[in-house]
């Protein structure tokens, strides 16, 4: 016996108590409800094989593709089913995807080739993305920062940036540098991707490329500050990184804001250095192939 609480158009939840096999797919259940219980129940679906990405919904807060998800895969016997973009629902399980589609328009999402085919066998993982919107609508940075283009866009940007046939890498990177540092690294995108892609890794790859640009941003500078702190101490030293980022005077307010922690006996004033620091430094100095 399973209890479903399904979000409906006027904001209330329909409750269904159903005796159903645990291996039944969520989408099959939606269809059964529409044909047998309520013909006005709206949801979207297409291929039924996890390819079209149109049936994404949230179940107990977790975003999933309805066609690939079995009812029995949830621990709880009560399933709260909501539209993917729960901030902007339209009708029942259908929601507004404008934000997600707009996120791709901030950069050229096609290849600018130099006309010559490359010899390399380049088949990026990112091409498997089905644009279901799961990563975008589960990203906490997106929900608080509407200008952030989100994980799927980063995956696509990384795909073009790493393509040897592309010719506009510089301008792509200029677009990307303003985007990738908006991520807070919570790994939700990687966790929930129904295609097992890794948008977080794509963001990390782009951040690495951003370090090659001459122009510094707070993001690239922050990465360098932490790198240098590890180089000098083998550890992250908060005072060192603050001074590196904001200078002596600029870092003072930040350092002084730590005084309450000092009074609570939480701070060790003498910096800790790792033993065998030479090993760490040599590891960080090594040239890559």
């Amino acid at each position: 016996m399973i209890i479903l609480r399904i979000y409906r158009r006027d904001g209330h939840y329909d409750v269904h108590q159903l005796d159903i096999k645990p291996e039944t797919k969520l989408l099959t259940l939606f269809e059964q409800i529409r044909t047998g219980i309520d013909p006005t129940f709206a949801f979207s679906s297409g291929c039924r094989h996890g390819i079209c990405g149109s049936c994404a919904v949230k179940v107990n807060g977790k975003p999933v593709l309805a066609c690939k998800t079995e009812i029995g895969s949830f621990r709880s016997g009560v399933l709260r089913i909501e539209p993917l973009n729960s901030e902007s629902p339209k009708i029942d399980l259908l929601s507004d995807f404008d934000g997600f589609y707009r996120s791709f328009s901030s950069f050229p999402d096609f290849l600018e080739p130099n006309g010559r085919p490359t010899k390399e066998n380049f088949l990026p993982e990112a091409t498997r993305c089905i644009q279901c919107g799961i990563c975008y609508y589960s990203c906490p940075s997106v929900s608080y920062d509407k200008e952030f283009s989100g994980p799927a866009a980063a995956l696509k940007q990384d795909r073009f940036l790493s393509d040897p046939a592309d010719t506009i890498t510089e301008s792509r990177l200029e677009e990307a540098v303003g985007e990738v540092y908006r991520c807070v690294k919570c790994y939700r995108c990687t966790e929930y991707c129904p295609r097992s892609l890794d948008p977080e890794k794509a963001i990390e790859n782009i951040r690495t490329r951003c370090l090659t640009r001459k122009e510094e941003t707070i993001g690239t500078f922050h990465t360098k500050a932490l790198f240098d702190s590890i180089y000098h101490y083998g550890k992250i030293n908060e005072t060192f990184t603050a001074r590196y980022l904001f200078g002596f005077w600029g870092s003072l307010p930040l350092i002084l804001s730590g005084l309450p922690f000092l009074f609570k006996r939480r701070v060790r004033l003498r910096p800790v250095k790792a033993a065998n620091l030479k090993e760490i430094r040599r590891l960080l100095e090594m040239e890559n192939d």
Partner: protein
Amino acid sequence: MIDPIVFFPGCMPASIARHQYRAEQKILKKLDIPYHECPEFSCCGGGHLQDADDIKFLALNARNLAYAEQHGDVLVTGCSTCYRNMAETAFRLQNERLRTAVNARLDAVGAPEYQGKIRIRHMLNFLASPEIFSLLEEQTSSPRPVNVLPFYGCHIKRPSSILPENPDGNMEKLLTLCGYLVRPMRDPYTCCGFHGEITAPSVSQALSAAVSEEAVEQQCPIIATVCPLCSFNIESHQMRNKTKRKMPEIIPFEELLLTSLK
């Protein structure tokens, strides 16, 4: 007698979150669990070294794991970001080619070889495991009927495909044992925003404020955390947002546990 463990405190507990570090050490001592802390341990990269250089990130973590392998079979850390980074390293270095390449680097600098044998555990999962939990059951006293909001944060759970353990319910189990009234959090695995503190400050602020607000809403005077980065971020945002309302206290779960141990 419990087998000895290797204890990896992480940079933050050893420098600006000493209360967590002290609590962890005291718990291990009270439970009579022998532990070793290698002075050679470096930073795990703090979640950002992989942004600078992926192979150096792997090498630095493999070096820590290699030193840990010399002193025990289990490494326990109280920092979720350290746990995630080390688990990612161990997971990716199961690939023999990559492990050989990383070991060649370790060899070139004179560090020990990483064999891939050590088990990486988070302090929360370690203390909630059956053998340690039964020790705790014998030692806990004086129930404290105070409402607590258990906040797990993200790196202890995600990405679950590479992390060795699922922490679901572990904090509830330990805090209930100590007599706390644990309230269910809407999304205990939400992000505190620490890793965007410098680069996306408004998002970081909003995320940590949401955690504090939920505690106020649920009438919890205490938010229990499992990661020093979460405690630091939520607490420092609370201090910056001066409000007349009484805000909840952020306490590492280790400290809460320690106060209930005999």
